[in-house]
């Protein structure tokens, strides 16, 4: 912990606005934080780094008054403080934007931004003043949307920016951004960073949590690294190399990360087996234009495109989560009438939604129940999986996928994001699917778990499973896929295959989007 002292505070200011000392938090059976120190200075962007379960969220929640600490002192501008709850922290000038948008999608943008502090006139809410004030705030973060539009009508990315506008609306000295960029595309990230820099230059202390290492180096001044609930160190960003950062986070050498460098084999040799799935003219108006697609056994097909380009919509059609209004689907050479997820599952298709919380987890059930849910649903309620079989199955997947804690009775809500994602993967793997559709399986999870999942995808494909892989990270798609389907504006614009496909080429297509420029692997 000697690094703590060596990290230089930003010039000009010597007094930290937030100074947490010896923070420990314990949950039944888990020491979430042990003796952690943390300092945040005015006018800096400070990245909080660590793997899933390292204690980042716990530390943030301790700072923002969500959790009370078991020991340790928090000083705000030199004065010791204890917050009775998030509202108290906010009153003291600490605003937080969480990873999952915590706003009311049924209210308007303006109402959301000013919720709880609406301008009043004669005791009633002054709708006009509210609109004007909201427009100002939106303008300040450079977001051009109608303040009276309903929040739910905007994509998640915009909702995220609205959440930030809301946080900025309070005069806060400390702004906590918990993975604000996980659902943003690169333009929106740039926009967000611009806003962050403006706020920083105005003296706001920004605590920034992200899994994107590039972003950390782009925006942060200093960083604090946690591992397993303990402080690893506090560093000036300029003085810590990326490799150094990653090994500080995961505490092991990086060999395995590099191994995943290029997984795809592009082995497009003659295939005798019929495609696992063939879609012809499949489409749904308002979601995605009709497209053709073939997926072969053992092949990883990547879907690349910007947010809202139709990636998720395409995947949902293949699974029957949404009903197609044109085209047809063949599975293993036989026509399949996709009436819904059940027909898809029966045909051997599995789908992991990008919305882990909303469409994946059953938070109040145990890891065991979550893991066997799809298998049990397929068997029907009258044929429960025998307890012994179930336990063996669950144990073996906890082991192979390295799911922590290795406790089948733990409620899945208490697991970290990466571990939740692994349980959801296992939920489908136990059903022995032929086609696995993964929508953003690595979003919002740490480097270690990410590498594990990418490797797993490659291994599954090697065993003959067909995989559709969606990710907002182009590098990841390119690295992992045998074939890449490029989508743009809700339309399939190209299909690329071959070892020489690079990120730049895909990026060009996403940007220019010359339609139907099929390019075979030659």
């Amino acid at each position, binding site marked *: 912990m000697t690094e703590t002292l060596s990290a230089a505070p930003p010039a000009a200011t010597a007094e930290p606005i937030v100074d947490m000392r010896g923070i420990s938090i314990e949950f039944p059976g888990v020491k979430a934080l042990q003796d952690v120190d943390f300092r945040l200075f005015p006018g800096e962007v400070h990245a909080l780094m660590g793997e899933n379960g390292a204690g980042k969220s716990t530390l943030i929640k301790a700072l923002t008054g969500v959790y009370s600490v078991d020991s340790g002192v928090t000083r705000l501008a030199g004065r010791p403080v204890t917050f009775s709850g998030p509202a108290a922290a906010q009153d003291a000038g600490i605003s937080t934007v969480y990873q999952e948008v915590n706003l009311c999608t049924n209210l308007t943008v303006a109402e959301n931004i000013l919720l709880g502090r609406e301008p009043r006139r004669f005791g009633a809410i002054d709708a006009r003043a509210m609109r004007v004030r909201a427009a100002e705030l939106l303008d300040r973060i450079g977001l051009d949307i109608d303040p009276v539009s309903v929040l739910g009508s905007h994509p998640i990315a915009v909702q995220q920016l609205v959440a930030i506008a809301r946080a900025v609306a309070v005069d806060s000295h400390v702004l906590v951004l918990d993975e604000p960029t996980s659902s943003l595309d690169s333009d929106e990230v740039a926009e967000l960073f611009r806003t962050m820099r403006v706020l920083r230059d105005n003296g706001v202390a920004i605590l920034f949590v992200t899994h994107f290492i590039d972003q950390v180096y782009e925006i942060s001044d200093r960083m604090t690294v946690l591992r397993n609930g303990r402080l690893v160190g506090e560093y000036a960003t300029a003085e810590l190399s990326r490799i150094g950062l990653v090994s500080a986070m995961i505490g092991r050498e990086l060999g395995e990360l590099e191994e995943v460098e290029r*997984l795809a084999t592009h082995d497009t040799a003659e295939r005798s087996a019929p495609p696992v799935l063939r879609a012809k003219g499949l489409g749904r108006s308002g979601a995605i234009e009709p497209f053709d697609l073939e997926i072969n056994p053992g092949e990883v097909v990547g879907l690349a495109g910007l947010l809202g380009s139709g990636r998720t919509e395409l995947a949902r059609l293949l699974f029957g989560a949404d009903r197609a209004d044109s085209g047809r689907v063949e599975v293993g050479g036989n026509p399949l009438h996709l009436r819904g997820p059940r027909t898809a599952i029966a045909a051997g298709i599995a789908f992991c939604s990008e919305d882990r919380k909303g*469409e994946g987890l059953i938070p109040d059930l145990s890891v065991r129940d979550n893991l066997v849910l799809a298998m049990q649903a397929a068997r029907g309620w009258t044929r429960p999986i025998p307890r012994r079989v179930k336990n063996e199955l669950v144990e073996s997947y906890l082991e192979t996928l390295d799911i922590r804690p290795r406790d089948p009775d733990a409620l899945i809500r208490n697991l970290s994001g990466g571990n939740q994602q692994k349980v959801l993967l296992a939920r489908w793997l136990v059903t022995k699917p032929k086609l696995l559709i993964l929508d953003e399986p690595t979003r919002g999870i740490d480097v270690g778990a990410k590498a594990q999942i990418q490797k797993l995808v490659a291994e599954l494909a090697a065993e003959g499973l067909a995989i559709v892989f969606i990710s907002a990270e182009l590098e990841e798609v390119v690295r992992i896929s045998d074939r890449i389907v490029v989508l743009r504006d809700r339309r399939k614009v190209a299909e690329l295959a071959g070892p020489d496909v690079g990120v730049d080429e895909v990026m060009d297509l996403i940007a220019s989007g010359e339609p139907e420029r099929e390019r075979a692997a030659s």
Partner: protein
Amino acid sequence: MTTTARDALIRAGRSRLTWPVLALVALLLVNVIVTPSFFDIRLQDGHLYGSLIDILKNGAPTLLIALGMTLVIATRGIDLSVGAVVAIAGAVACTSIAGAADSGGAAAAFTGIGLALLLCAVLGFWNGFLVSVLGIQPIIATLVLMITGRGIAMLITDGQIVTVNNPYYAGVGAGFVVLPVAILISVGMFALVGLVTRRTALGMLIESVGINPKASRLAGVRSRTIVWTVYVFCALCAAVGGLMISSNVSAADANNAGLWIELDAILAVVIGGTALSGGRYSLTGTLVGALLIQTLTTTVYTTGIAPEITLVFKALVVIVVCLIQAPKARALLRRRRTPVAPPNAAAPPEPAVAVETTPTRKVGQR
């Protein structure tokens, strides 16, 4: 680690029911103090009699309806129409029996009961249709039948109180097989449902639909069928409860039979620790809740609390039980007697990567 986790689990499982059970015990003690013979049970002509038996017998309909309600609430729903269904069941059975050629015979009784169950199943089907197919909010969907149901019952009975004189029918609510038949039916149904939901996968699937319907659908769970079935089952429970109530007095009162029983049933479920937001449910909890409510009613009578303050007294007990169960109050109590978890394997050992082998795919071979 596992032992402490298990201990914590047991503690949590206990704490959910601790307070309702304590309240129940306290009420029973009050009764014993006021009426020392309260716990006495006599065997007379092969039938058991006593205050405790009375509580069980009078509580049997509520218990049964709370059973159906538990499953409905577990799926994020609520069924306000059970009281109306109670009235309809009695009305159909009594009208049918009274109108039969041999109105004292077994055939008439069974026809009446069969008709009542059938019609009520249809009503449950209707509720389930509104909720699971049309996607109407349960509270509104079942409000429809709650209001029109009494009207239907009135139509069936022509607005009169229909009395019947049929020993077979009277057997349902007033009969004895050592214990009152009503108790046997309710307890039997409870055991059966407990067994069916927990021994098969039904309980888990119901909970998963209640906790996250979207995710359940995507995992291939038949959410719609499950929700629909649960409403039919709840209506059937209400129907049997209605038959008990009506057969106990050998009459059908469309206006008053099962009046406000939906609220008692919901209360029993909530006191039992099943959250109105759906998800995890506890049949044992519901059992305790229903008994608590019935004991409360009995206590009011035995202690001779003045009728004008009965409701206030009931309300007080309910408020205390609910408050004490509220997560915030529980958290406060827990903080008071914090069991410090022993320092154990909290920090997991250094991560070991699961998938160790290099992918075995051939690179660049075409």
